[in-house]
């Protein structure tokens, strides 16, 4: 185990333990029966509503061919340039249908370049409660979801989970964070309101976050 040399470690731990010997009365927990978040009854409907609120673009497609048409439409709306794509059989198939002539950089060839116009990745899950996508390092790496002006996510309705609690407990159970050094719950395009609280989309990351949500798996 690569332990860092650390002379203050034991001293700090000792101080913490000494401090904790002071007893602070703890009131009994009382919220066990209270519901904090409204339960999500219709995950698909809720996800679509939250996408609108998060200023994301979500298109519902029936099958792979329809998803390819949608992807093609999005790519055509972007300036010429390289598209970075997560190297996955489902995305290879989709790109073949959607953008046969376009310059593609696959994640197996390395990280996306700064000049990428778009990135196309899968997601680990979609979260209805917050209109979010959950990605990990397996989804084309860390920068795939933040480097280009447009991030396109190809997902299926089967990947929808009702809320954050389910998504996080799923990640815990599947030990996602032991298998990946990185995960991110993304809820919209990059933004800032640092000047006079005025919302600007496309701060350091994508201006557009597009979800192509396919009903058939």
């Amino acid at each position, binding site marked *: *185990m*690569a332990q*860092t040399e*650390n002379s*203050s*470690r034991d001293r*700090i*731990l000792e*101080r*913490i333990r000494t*401090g*904790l*010997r*002071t*007893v*602070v009365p*703890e009131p009994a927990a009382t*919220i066990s029966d209270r519901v*904090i*978040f409204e339960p999500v009854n219709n995950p698909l409907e809720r996800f679509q509503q939250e996408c609108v609120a998060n200023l994301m673009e979500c298109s519902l497609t029936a099958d792979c061919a329809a998803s390819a048409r949608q992807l093609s439409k999005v790519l055509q709306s972007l300036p010429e340039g390289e598209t970075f794509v997560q190297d996955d059989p489902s995305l290879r198939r989709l790109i073949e249908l959607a953008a046969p002539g376009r310059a593609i950089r696959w*994640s197996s060839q*390395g*990280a996306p370049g700064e000049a990428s116009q778009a990135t196309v990745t899968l997601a680990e899950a979609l979260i209805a409660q917050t209109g979010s996508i959950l990605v990990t*390092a397996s989804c084309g*790496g*860390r*920068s*795939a979801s*933040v*480097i280009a002006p447009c991030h396109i996510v190809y997902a299926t309705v089967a990947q929808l989970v009702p809320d*954050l*609690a389910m*998504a*996080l407990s799923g*990640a*815990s159970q599947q030990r996602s*964070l*032991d*298998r*990946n*050094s*990185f*995960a*991110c*719950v993304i*809820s919209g*395009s*990059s*933004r*800032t*309101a*640092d*000047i*006079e*609280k005025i919302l*600007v989309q*496309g*701060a*350091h*990351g994508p201006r557009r976050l597009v979800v192509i949500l396919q009903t058939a798996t």
Partner: protein
Amino acid sequence: MSTTAAQRFLQDAAVKSADLVHRELIRRGMESYDAAHLKGRARIKDWEAARQKCQEIKREAINHLDRYLLQFEEKVVSRGGHVFWAANGEEACTYVKDLATRLGVRTVVKSKSMVTEEIHLSPALEKVGIKVWETDFGEFIVQLRDEPPYHIVTPAMHLNRGQIAKLFREKLDPEIDSDDPAYLMAAARRKLRQAFFAAEMGISGANFLVADTGVIAISTNEGNGRLCTSIPRIHVVVTGIEKVIPRLEDLAVLWPVLATSGTGQGITTYSTLIGGPRRPGEVDGPEEFHVVLVDNGRSQLLADAEQREVLHCIRCGACLNICPVFRHVGGHTYGTTYPGPIGSVLTPHLAGIKEFKHLSYASSLCGACSSVCPVKIDLHHHLLQNRRNATEAGATKSSERLMFRAWRSAMLHPRIYALGGWSMRRALRMIYGLGLAGSIFDPMRVWNRHRSPVPLPSQSFRARWRKGLGTN
């Protein structure tokens, strides 16, 4: 002549509260926050239950701090990360500085971290010739102005677009010809993209350290935190020991509550989890991952049975936004890393009660801060406790002690009290009559120099009481 922190506070507060441009900017900013915050709270079915849940999570973490920190450390180290425990700011800065020097770092990109402000990390790195870029848009703006963040969530909220456009023209590009926020953001993005790709080291803070999973959680909207932790070959996390939480699932409540209290969002745009350096087979990510756990006075608070809960703070900024004092005097007036109510409570513990006790008095004790705190810290009572602690520690002025002794004596001797009241009414009537209200001759100067004098009663309260108050 050197001035004390208290004198500077009074001077700056007087200037800022009379600055109409500043007042208007803060008023508009806070109104926009208030509306978003209320809307955000309404999205949560039971806001009070959410606050209580967050309080319980943080209480459990802090009451077992040693255990959870060790659990976190073990996980991070098992994945090839490094954990350094820093007793104070100097140790933390030395560790990062030595690491940067050893690994040949010349440029650092930083995402927003209040702990790095607290320990003055950037100046320490710049002293050894390392260029540090703040990459949060607001932090970037205040870095160009060479001033500290104004607010812990929105560091540049004291500036309007015209001031920022002028700053960018002077410091970034003389061709800047618009003050449109999107245009200014794009200019900063272009500049900072170069920095992201040039930097060898990315430094971030952490909103939470998750013990059971051994990951850090960072919430950012702009994506700068994502780039800082993805592109450079070294990632250093500098954070306080109190940021630990027990379980990954706790974020299901903490993330929405932090976002709601911070900006009114349902969840922050990028809620990121990082558990170590890039793993074999991963496309990108840093080769080295270091977590610096900073104590810097925090462990002392554990022994304070009344105020241990101050360590529950998740730095959302809600108490600053609601505080009538902050809204008038602004963030820089506090002269501390953490402004507003939480700063007034915390700073005496971190930087000394003698120098910073005045902050406990920069409060009307209205309790608005406690009412909005998402982890239910009883902030205004802690301000009262700090006042008491300062008095008990003998940190008060001798003139103040003398005044209170005289007051106590008068309260115990009704005749002396009555005589005092009688003389004061006479004296004030004369001073007001001569038009000297608010002048140096006026004992009520502090009140009267900015306000009309309160009309004097013709009789004392005791006299009116004897006659029957109701008939007066």
